[in-house]
């Protein structure tokens, strides 16, 4: 991730038209990481109806993601890691770095990991072609469509073990989930209309309605 910076009042700050550049390296956020972080950052809130619901604290999640995924950067605060996490002593110094600068790196990382609205629109468009009757596939398939087709054929539609799933980048996993919902929607559209539940009593017993209305 690269962030353009400039000096303001003698301090380095992120600036889209800055003359300098700083970069940071993040490890890919896997599904396993994401589950673990969500678990660590979630808390219970009350929703209407008096029920309790677990919600993820977005700010803490972001901080934990940095602890988990930031591997190195060009800032003069060395990143030290142990057992897959940033060490406590290291974070004590990272936490003292100018907030907006760290936030700029986190923003870049989020953008890289997120499935954008553009991605969503392309996948929706291509899934209409992919799941149509007599479909012969999609030309110039989106990354999500390609992932879906590959995993679908290789692993008999997500016959992935939990371990394999945990190692999958969370972005890929999200796209697969989105494609699954598209497939479901397509199947619903294609499904034959349901037989009527209305029963007609005849002299010889009971039969299903044929849906014909007489006398209108």
């Amino acid at each position, binding site marked *: 991730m690269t962030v353009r910076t400039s000096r303001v009042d003698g301090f380095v700050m992120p600036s889209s038209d800055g003359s300098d550049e700083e970069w940071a390296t993040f490890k890919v956020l896997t599904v396993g990481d994401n589950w673990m972080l969500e678990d660590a950052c979630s808390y219970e809130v009350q929703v209407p109806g008096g029920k309790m619901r677990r919600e993820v604290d977005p700010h803490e999640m*972001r901080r934990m993601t940095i602890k988990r995924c930031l591997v190195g950067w060009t800032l003069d*605060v060395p990143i030290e890691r142990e057992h897959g996490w940033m060490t406590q002593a290291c974070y004590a110094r990272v936490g003292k770095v100018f907030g907006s600068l760290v936030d700029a790196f986190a923003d870049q990382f989020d953008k890289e990991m997120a499935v954008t609205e553009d991605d969503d629109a392309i996948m929706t468009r291509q899934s209409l072609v992919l799941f149509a009757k007599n479909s012969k596939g999609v030309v110039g398939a989106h990354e999500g469509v390609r992932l879906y087709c590959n995993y679908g054929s290789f692993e008999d539609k997500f016959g992935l073990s939990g371990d394999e799933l945990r190692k999958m980048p969370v972005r890929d996993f999200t796209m697969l989930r989105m494609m699954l919902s598209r497939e479901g929607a397509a199947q619903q559209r294609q499904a034959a209309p349901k037989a009527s539940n209305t029963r007609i009593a005849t002299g010889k017993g009971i039969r299903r309605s044929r849906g014909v209305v007489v006398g209108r």
Partner: protein
Amino acid sequence: MPVVQPKKKPSQPEEVRVDEALMSPGKYEVTEENTFTVDVYLMLKKKVWTLVSGSGDGVHHEQVVFRLWNYDEMVGLRKKATTYDSVRRMHVVDNDALNRLKIQKFLMSWTFDKDNPRLKLHHVGGVLTDESWTHVKLLQPSILRHIIDKMNEVYERS
């Protein structure tokens, strides 16, 4: 019978990492000295102080000094200003509350007190006192809005 008392062990000093003890803060680490200044240019027009864009005849130049925030402080304040909207089922950051917290924690000094020592800003535990916060609140809304906007140009730069 005399009892031999165990020797008192000298108290162990807290372990300090040698590398950290030797290193001064990096150029990206925020210290108390890292401040920025918001310039406010004001002119009295028809008994009302009006914001103007720069210095000139009859223009008063005031300065408001803020300390930069570090990442930990930023996350802490954002968490404090965030509430959970149980109807929409999402977290919402209350920007007014966040601005208030930023001012209370990071407003270091201003020049509004040069003619009126009553307006001097005081801090307790690194936070503005209630009296000082009241002085901030009593500023003309347009002036305070300008200060907040300029302050956020630095804090929300990412």
